[in-house]
C-alpha cells in the first residue's frame, strides 16, 4: 500500500473513513456536530412522505434535486406490474412519492421504469454510487454502498427532510473499527456466511458508535456484489456504515455504468479514488478479526441476526448465558421460533424459501441459487420466491436463462422489490411458517406476523428449496459447490 501523507499539511496518516469525512465537512462550530455535505440522497416511498410534508409546511424547496434519486421498492407488489395495486395504503404511498417527485423536481424510477429496483441495488448498478462519496437514505441498509469506499449510512425521516432542504446533515464523527478478514473461503461458503459469522461473533450491538472498515485478503478476493452483501449487513452488527477501500475490482465494476464519469473525468476520478485507501500507519479505534478459511455455511436460529451458527450447529441454551437481559432475549427468541436448546437445525422442515433483497438480490446471488436449482425440483409443499433486486438484474438473469432454471424447478419468478424481506407489499409468511431467507433480518414478524425466519446465503437457501429442510449445501449430491468470489 502506498502512503498518501504527502498531500496533507499535517502528514497525519488517516483511515479511509476520515478522508471521506474530512472532505465533506462544510462547517464545524466548537461543541456542535459537524455539518456534513451529502453527495447523493436516495429516496424511497416509505421514509419520505413526512419529510416532503415538512418541506411543504415550511414552504421550502429541495436544494439539490440533481443530487437526489427516488424509486419505489418497499411497498410495491412483485406480481405483474400491469395489474393495479390492491393495497390502498401502499397505492397511496407510491402515488404520493410520484406526486412529491413531480412537485420537487426529483428524478424517479417508478414501477414502470426499467431502472426501478431496490434502492441499494440500483445505486451501484447505475454507477451513482462512487468511491469517496457521502450517501444517505432513509433506510438502514444504505451501508451497502460502503463497498465502494463511500461513506453511506441510514438516516431517519427528520434527517431526510434536512438533506432535502439543505443537502447537509448535522453529525458527530463516529469512531472507526477495522474488521480484518483473512483467508480463503472454503467451498459452499460465501460472503453472506462471512457477515453472519461476524455478527454472531460481535453481537447486534457490537459495532454501535462505530463505522467499520473491512480489510484483509478475504475481502480483497471478493467481487463487488459480494462486498455489497457484507457492507449491507454492517447495521446488523450495530455499525451505521461499513466501508471497503476501492481497488481495481471497484473501478472495473464502475467503468461504463450510466452515471460513472467518462473520458478525462474518469481519469481524474480514478486518480482521486486511488488516494482513498487508509494510509500506512493510520489506526482504528477498535479491531476485530475473522478467519474466513475456518467458516462453514451459516444459519440463524433466533430473532436477531446475531443469533447465528454454522448450519451444522445446535441451538444454544439460554441457561448458559450469564446476563439476564441476554437470557430473556434468547428464551423469548426460542419460544417464538418454537425451537429447543440443543436442537440441530439440519433436517428441520421449512415452508418457504425467499431469494432476494438488498443483501442477496443481485445477479451473482441468483447465479449461485440457480447453480443448486438447475435440473432439480423444489421439494413438495415448499413455496420458493425468487425476487430480483432490480429490473436490470432481472433482465440479466433472463438473458442467462436463469428464470427458466427457477421456473422449471417450481420457483416463483417475480418483479423487483424488497418483497418478503420486509413483507410490506403483500409477499409475506403465514403465522407459524418457517422460511430460509437470503434477506437481512430475522426479527419477530419481519417476514409477516408469526412468521419464523432462518437467515442464510443463496446457496443454503437453494439447498433448502430442493430438500424441503434446512440443509448443508456441501452435502447435496451432484452439486459442484466451488469457492466463490461472491
Amino acid at each position: 500500500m502506498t502512503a498518501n501523507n504527502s498531500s496533507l499539511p499535517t502528514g497525519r496518516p488517516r483511515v479511509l473513513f476520515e478522508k471521506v469525512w474530512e472532505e465533506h465537512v462544510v462547517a464545524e462550530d466548537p461543541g456542535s456536530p459537524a455539518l456534513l455535505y451529502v453527495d447523493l440522497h436516495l429516496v424511497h416511498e416509505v421514509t419520505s412522505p413526512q419529510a416532503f410534508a415538512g418541506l411543504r409546511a415550511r414552504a421550502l424547496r429541495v436544494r439539490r434535486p440533481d443530487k437526489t434519486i427516488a424509486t419505489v421498492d418497499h411497498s410495491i407488489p412483485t406480481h405483474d406490474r400491469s395489474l393495479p395495486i390492491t393495497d390502498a395504503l401502499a397505492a397511496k404511498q407510491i402515488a404520493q412519492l410520484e406526486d412529491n417527485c413531480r412537485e420537487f423536481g426529483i428524478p424517479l424510477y417508478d414501477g414502470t421504469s426499467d431502472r426501478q429496483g431496490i434502492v441499494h441495488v440500483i445505486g451501484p448498478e447505475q454507477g451513482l454510487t462512487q468511491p469517496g462519496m457521502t450517501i444517505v437514505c432513509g433506510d438502514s441498509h444504505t451501508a451497502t454502498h460502503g463497498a465502494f469506499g463511500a461513506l453511506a449510512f441510514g438516516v431517519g425521516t427528520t434527517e431526510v427532510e434536512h438533506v432535502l432542504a439543505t443537502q447537509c446533515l448535522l453529525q458527530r464523527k463516529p469512531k472507526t473499527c477495522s474488521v480484518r478478514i483473512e483467508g480463503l473461503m472454503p467451498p459452499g461458503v460465501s460472503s453472506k456466511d462471512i457477515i453472519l459469522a461476524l455478527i454472531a461473533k460481535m453481537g447486534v450491538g457490537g459495532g454501535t458508535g462505530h463505522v467499520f472498515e473491512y480489510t484483509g485478503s478475504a475481502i480483497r478476493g471478493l467481487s463487488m456484489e459480494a462486498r455489497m452483501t457484507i457492507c449491507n449487513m454492517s447495521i446488523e452488527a450495530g455499525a451505521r456504515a461499513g466501508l471497503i477501500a476501492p481497488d481495481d475490482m471497484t473501478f472495473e465494476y464502475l467503468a461504463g455504468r450510466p452515471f460513472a464519469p467518462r473520458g478525462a473525468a474518469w481519469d481524474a476520478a480514478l486518480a482521486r479514488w486511488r488516494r482513498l485507501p487508509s494510509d500506512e500507519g493510520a489506526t482504528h479505534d477498535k479491531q476485530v478479526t475473522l478467519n474466513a478459511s475456518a467458516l462453514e455455511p451459516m444459519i440463524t436460529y433466533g430473532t436477531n441476526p446475531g443469533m447465528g451458527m454454522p448450519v451444522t450447529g445446535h441451538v444454544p441454551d439460554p441457561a448458559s448465558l450469564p446476563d439476564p437481559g441476554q437470557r430473556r432475549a434468547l428464551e423469548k427468541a426460542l419460544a417464538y421460533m418454537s425451537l429447543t436448546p440443543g436442537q440441530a437445525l439440519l433436517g428441520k422442515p421449512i415452508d418457504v424459501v425467499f431469494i432476494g433483497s438488498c443483501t442477496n438480490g443481485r445477479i451473482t446471488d441468483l447465479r449461485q441459487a440457480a447453480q443448486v436449482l438447475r435440473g432439480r425440483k423444489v421439494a413438495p409443499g415448499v413455496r420458493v420466491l425468487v425476487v430480483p433486486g432490480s429490473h436490470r438484474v432481472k433482465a440479466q438473469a433472463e438473458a442467462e436463462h436463469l428464470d427458466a432454471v427457477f421456473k422449471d424447478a417450481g420457483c416463483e419468478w417475480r418483479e423487483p422489490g424488497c418483497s418478503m424481506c420486509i413483507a410490506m407489499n403483500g409477499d409475506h409468511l403465514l403465522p407459524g411458517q418457517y422460511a430460509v431467507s437470503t434477506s437481512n433480518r430475522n426479527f419477530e414478524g419481519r417476514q409477516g406476523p408469526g412468521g419464523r425466519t432462518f437467515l442464510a446465503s443463496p446457496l443454503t437457501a437453494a439447498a433448502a428449496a430442493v430438500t424441503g429442510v434446512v440443509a448443508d449445501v456441501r452435502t447435496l449430491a451432484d452439486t459442484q459447490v466451488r469457492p466463490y468470489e461472491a
Partner: protein
Amino acid sequence: MMEPFRTFTGRVIALPMDNIDTDQIIPARFLKTTDKAGLGASLFADWRYDADGRPRPDFVLNRPEAQGAQVLLAGDNFGCGSSREHAPWALAGFGFRAVVSTSFADIFRNNALKNGLLPIIVDGEAHRRLLDSLAREPQAEVTVDLAAQTLKLPGGVEVSFPIDGFARDCLLEGVDELGYLFQRHSQIAAYEARVPDAVRTL
C-alpha cells in the same frame, strides 16, 4: 419549533429485554402511513395484541399501570434494526417522553432526540436498581431533569446520564436542527462552489 423539554416526574414501564428492535416497536405493515400521528396505538403491536387485535392481558403495556406512564425501561441496545423514525413517533404517540437503557442503537438514538423523546443511558447498577424498585412498587415514579442530566430513581437516589450537549440544548430550547442548518446557508453555498459535484442525477 418543538415543545421545549421540561423536567417531569412520571411512572415507568419495564420491558427489560436486550436488543428490542424497531420491527417490534412498530411492525413494518404500519409504515404504509404517510403521517406521523396515530402510531401510538400500534406501538409494540405484535406483542400487545393477539392475531384478532385483542389486547394481550399479560403484556406490560396493557396493564393498568401502563396508562399514563411516561418512561420506558428497556434492555441493552434498544432500537436496533431499521432507521424508521416511526419508532420514536410511536413511542411518543403512546405518551413516552424518555426511554432508559444501558445503550441505544445509533440511528434510533438520533431519531428519538429529534422528536423530544429522551434516550437516557444508565449503567448496569442503576438499571438493576430501577428494575428492582418497579418489581416492588409498579407505580413507582422517576424524575427526569434534562438540564441537570439527572434521573432521580424511586427512593431518591440520583444518577446522572450523558447526552450530546448540542442535542440537549436543542431539546431544552425547543429548537429544531433545520433552523441551525439554514443559518449555515452561505457556508453550504461556498462548499458547493468549491467542491465539484460527485454525481448528478438529472
